């Protein structure tokens, strides 16, 4: 089993052998006219296709500096959301004896998912294949260089788009671990996550975002379901959130759940994580425009307003119900507002964002306080309650409120008939399918991993002592 650690090394060596092969020389295009050259520059400003495309050799190579600047910033922000943002947000909420286990899981996912992404994950997700899965043409990042892949961004280097998307691939499985915190074996989590990337994330992301994805209503003329998902309501929050629910039910409750106190060991750190998530989310949502253009800016604004509205609503409900607005309430509401606006952020107007934020705060409060209490599953850190519920609602509301006023791309022929009409139904279809797929896959994978790892859960003794000490040989704090 331990020999698996040799694999990436071999893969790296193989990849080295396969250094960028110069493709068959393309036919030489004519020199551009001054008019065309100015046109190219204007296209950069407008984040539009080059006017020289197919007509002349563009004098400006690679991406455009302003867009690249924003996208590098965004990629760094999304990485920051996981490390240390989410690690703190989750780590603060568990008991003192388990903080490091959450941190280890976030770090390990960053390491492993990056290597998967490099080897074939990116290719399977964003490479062209069929509606269901991409191909292997970009395995080991072959052909992913500094020229834009115009399927995904007119003025951003292909490799920048790739690495930006990697950050999404890292955070998605990391969200899931919140539901199964404090009791699952590290080894089992890692194995499960690797399988899950192949079975759930790569396919689902391809369906919704792949240039030829069968649910990609925004960019694929041939899409069967005309769904839209700006920054990952379906792809990120629904996949992770619904899988989290399934997994935490399969796994069972924590020892002593409902009987022993399991308060957050450090609400202060949790709040720090929340602030990082909020700030990082600008990279997540506004970055999903793959440009520093008006759509990005609008997403920035809607993200802010929805987060604020969520951050207001959840504690407001607490204030009404029990008299004290809590910091966990503020944090949960903000994250709910952020998760819920995610699929809609680049498609709706600011006023709608406020509405979505309010709905988000109320609905996730209800999920975490009422539904969870009623059905008695142990979603430790409310990945389901916040991300699945928020992502699902956001996905549908994106369908209801999307407007070309917010995003001109919705005016494309392939989708415009749906906008303002039955788009929500497409959203519902896409969401439901991904939901079912995620849940079923999770249950099957959990059984498989359980067989491979001799059970998914740590022993009672380990759970009592804490995962940090036994699984990682360390303690979060000393002295």
């Amino acid at each position, binding site marked *: 089993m331990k020999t698996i650690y040799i694999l990436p090394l071999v893969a790296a060596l193989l990849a080295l052998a396969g250094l960028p092969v110069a493709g068959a020389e393309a036919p030489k295009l004519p020199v551009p006219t001054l008019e065309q050259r100015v046109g190219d520059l204007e296209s950069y400003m407008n984040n539009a296709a080059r006017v020289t495309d197919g007509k002349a050799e563009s004098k400006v190579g690679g991406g455009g500096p302003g867009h690249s600047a924003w996208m590098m910033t965004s990629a760094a922000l999304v990485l920051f959301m996981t490390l240390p943002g989410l690690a703190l947000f989750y780590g603060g909420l568990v008991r003192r004896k388990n903080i490091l286990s959450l941190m280890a899981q976030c770090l390990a996912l960053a390491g492993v998912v990056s290597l998967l992404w490099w080897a074939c994950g990116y290719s399977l997700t964003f490479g062209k294949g069929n509606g269901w899965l991409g191909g292997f043409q970009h395995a080991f990042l072959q052909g992913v260089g500094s020229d834009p892949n115009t399927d995904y961004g007119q003025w951003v280097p292909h490799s920048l788009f790739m690495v930006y998307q990697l950050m999404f691939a890292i955070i998605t499985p990391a969200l899931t671990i919140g539901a199964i915190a404090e009791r699952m074996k590290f080894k089992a989590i890692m194995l499960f996550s690797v399988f899950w990337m192949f079975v759930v994330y790569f396919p689902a992301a391809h369906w919704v975002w792949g240039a030829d994805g069968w649910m990609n209503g925004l960019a694929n003329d041939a899409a069967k379901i005309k769904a839209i998902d700006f920054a990952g309501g379906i792809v990120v929050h629904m996949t992770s959130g619904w899988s989290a629910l399934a997994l935490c039910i399969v796994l069972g409750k924590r020892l002593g759940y*409902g009987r022993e*106190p*399991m*308060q*957050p060991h450090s609400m202060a750190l949790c709040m720090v994580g929340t602030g990082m998530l909020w700030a990082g989310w600008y990279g997540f949502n506004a970055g999903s425009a793959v440009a520093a253009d008006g759509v990005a800016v609008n997403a920035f604004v809607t993200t802010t307003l929805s987060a604020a509205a969520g951050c207001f609503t959840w504690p407001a409900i607490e204030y009404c119900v*029990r008299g004290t607005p*809590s910091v*966990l309430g503020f944090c*949960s509401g903000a994250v709910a507002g952020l998760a819920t606006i995610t699929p809609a952020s680049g498609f709706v107007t600011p006023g709608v964002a406020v509405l979505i934020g309010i709905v988000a705060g109320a609905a996730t409060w209800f999920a*975490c*306080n*009422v539904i*969870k*209490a009623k059905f008695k599953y142990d979603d430790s850190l*409310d990945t389901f*309650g916040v991300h699945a519920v928020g992502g699902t609602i956001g996905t549908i509301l994106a369908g209801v409120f999307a407007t070309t006023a917010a995003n001109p791309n919705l005016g494309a022929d392939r989708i415009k008939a749906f906008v303002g009409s039955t788009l929500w139904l497409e959203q519902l279809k896409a969401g439901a399918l991904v939901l079912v797929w995620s849940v079923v896959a999770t249950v099957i994978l959990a059984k498989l991993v359980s067989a491979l790892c001799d059970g998914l859960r740590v022993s009672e003794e380990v759970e009592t002592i804490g995962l940090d000490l036994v699984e990682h040989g360390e303690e979060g704090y000393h002295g």
Partner: protein
Amino acid sequence: MKKIEAIIKPFKLEDVKEALKDIGITGMTVTEVKGFGRQKGHTEIYRGSEYTVDFLPKTKIEVAVADSLVKQAVELIVKAARTGKIGDGKVFVSSLEDAYRIRTDERGDAAV
């Protein structure tokens, strides 16, 4: 020699310390403890999970004193630590067989 143990409300520590200083008791050992008693704890709710925190933060003071000082010391502690509200705490007195000052090998009353 006796050992006086007092469980008091944390914010009364300064007052008790000052009171004891007045009668020349300048040595004591203090521990953060959690107390359970008639004073009710509080409830914390985190996303729907309700936790009753029965144990309240208290401060334990331990002082070894010569027999002659015990009565006075206890009285002063009780007075200084009292707020009159529930949860003010307890004072326990027990007997010590011997005491040593590590630095000097002094023993007994001289050591405290």
